[in-house]
């Protein structure tokens, strides 16, 4: 076989491969949307699930997913910004720092179920928080910290050295330079990264089944006192998220329309992820523009 023929054959082969991949991936998205979107209705996304009969919704689950996301970001983002700043601005090449970097990398590679089990042991049992939003939020924070730290460190490192020197030359201390000049300049990158990580938090289930739990108590959406047990904001109540709900009803759902509910919930989940994806691009671009960088 001549080199020319081989070249043509190989090219054809690559087209086939790409064809297969596109079919599979398009089929996957198509499946979720075609089956799921007809299920979506205002009623579906606001009412609680039914256990024995049809017509239940995923209202509390959707709320739980967002609430958990907010709490997780509130815990993880400040720590990640601190750690990212230190690693980008202060850390020298020292064996302690190298060890720390290795540990952070190890954390980022741990399977989410392992982090979930740690959360179960530490937050649920040892701290005594039980299956609760708080336990879930902490577990997810641990799980996403390495990613967020990397995002922050990278965004800060992308700011040129000259900006720092300009700050120092005004008599700013390193810390003032970081907080008033570098961090604001790095913000678009950080925000983009955080929103992308939000998608990951939103879809995570394995780390949650043993921390935030697999049930949602009856909650009263008119009661916004975080200390009340029926309040949606109470951080000490168990909270099944959308992703966990999909998993649960596919394993043990006994409502007759379990399949339809999962279809709808899966579509909702993917739409949310798409939403995070586009917002991150949009907000990132908007912020860059606002700062006048081209």
């Amino acid at each position, binding site marked *: 076989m001549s080199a020319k023929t081989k070249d043509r054959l190989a090219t054809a082969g690559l087209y086939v491969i790409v064809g297969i991949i596109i079919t599979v991936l398009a089929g996957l998205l198509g499946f979720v949307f075609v089956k799921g979107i007809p299920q979506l209705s205002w009623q579906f996304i606001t009412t609680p699930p039914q256990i024995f009969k049809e017509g239940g919704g995923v209202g509390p689950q959707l709320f739980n997913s967002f609430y958990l996301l907010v709490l997780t970001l509130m815990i993880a983002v400040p720590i990640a910004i601190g750690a990212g700043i230190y690693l980008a601005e202060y850390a020298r090449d020292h064996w302690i720092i190298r060890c720390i970097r290795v540990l952070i990398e190890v954390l980022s590679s741990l399977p989410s179920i392992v982090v979930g089990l740690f959360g179960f042991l530490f937050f649920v049992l040892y701290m005594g928080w039980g299956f609760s939003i708080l336990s879930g939020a902490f577990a997810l924070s641990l799980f996403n910290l390495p990613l967020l730290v990397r995002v922050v460190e990278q965004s800060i490192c992308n700011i040129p050295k000259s900006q720092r*020197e300009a700050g120092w030359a*005004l*008599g*700013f201390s390193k810390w003032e330079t970081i907080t008033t000049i570098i961090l604001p300049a790095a913000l678009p990158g950080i925000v983009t990264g955080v929103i992308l990580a939000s998608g990951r938090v939103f879809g995570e289930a394995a780390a949650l089944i043993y921390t935030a739990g697999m049930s949602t108590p009856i909650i009263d959406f008119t009661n916004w006192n975080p200390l009340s047990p029926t309040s949606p904001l109470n951080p000490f109540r168990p909270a099944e998220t959308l992703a966990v709900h999909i998993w649960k009803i596919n394993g043990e759902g006994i409502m007759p329309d379990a399949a339809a509910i999962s279809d709808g919930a899966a579509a909702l989940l993917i739409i949310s992820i798409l939403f995070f994806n586009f917002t991150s691009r949009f907000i990132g671009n908007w912020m860059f523009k606002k700062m*006048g960088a081209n």
Partner: protein
Amino acid sequence: MQSVALQPVKMKTNRIKVVDSPDFPRSSVLQTTDLSVYYGEHCAVNEVSLSFPKQSVTALIGPSGCGKSTFLRSINRMNDDIDSCRTEGKIYYEGVDLHSLNVNVHEIRKQIGMVFQRPVPFAKSIFKNVAAGPMRYGVKDKRELLGIVEENLKKAALWEEVKDQLHTSALRLSGGQQQRLCIARALAMQPSVLLLDEPASALDPVSTAKIEELISQLKKDYTIVIVTHNMQQAARVSDEVAYFYMGRVIEHGPTEQIFNHPHHEQTAHYINGRIG
């Protein structure tokens, strides 16, 4: 210029008795004695002794890599932040040894402003760029800040061009405007010395002319040290010239003398090579 240099310096703290620099000429606000700067083993500045008269412009000239930037950066101790960098010799500012233990390095940089070769505006509005320094030093009142911003933008000859867009991003300005903004930002700290490291080398001729004009204006209030590769520029704006070569000062004197009757052949070669 001569008359200025001969006047006794009105120092902010004129009761200082200068004990550790006996040969400190009273007319100079800034002086180095045997200043050497090393990057690791490499000696970038070699036993340089220069003094800078108050309210004058001194141009540092010399081929690339001869240590002009390094010299300039060691004056406001920017080189402290480079790990491999080591400094020997002394720098006196208003009679104070800048390397003595209790000197506050942030205070040094506040009083000795610096402008870099490439304009480095912060990714903030024009207003915030100029106000950043004063805000850090406790000016909170919005009206007062606006006054400071206006005053310094005027000093930097930028006010007329930007007064209607103070709150747009500084990154939208042209290169020349950005550089004048950086000068305004440095002036807002109320320094008494300005260090300019090739401030116009990245700019177009029109902007360059504006910056030169500005320097001549600022001379009335500030002591200016400017690094430049442009001999015409050095001749136009400076009162004194120091010619650097391989980390040493070969020749230092009034601009007119250096350009017309240099003592050293090498200086003449460099200047002529540059001009001709």
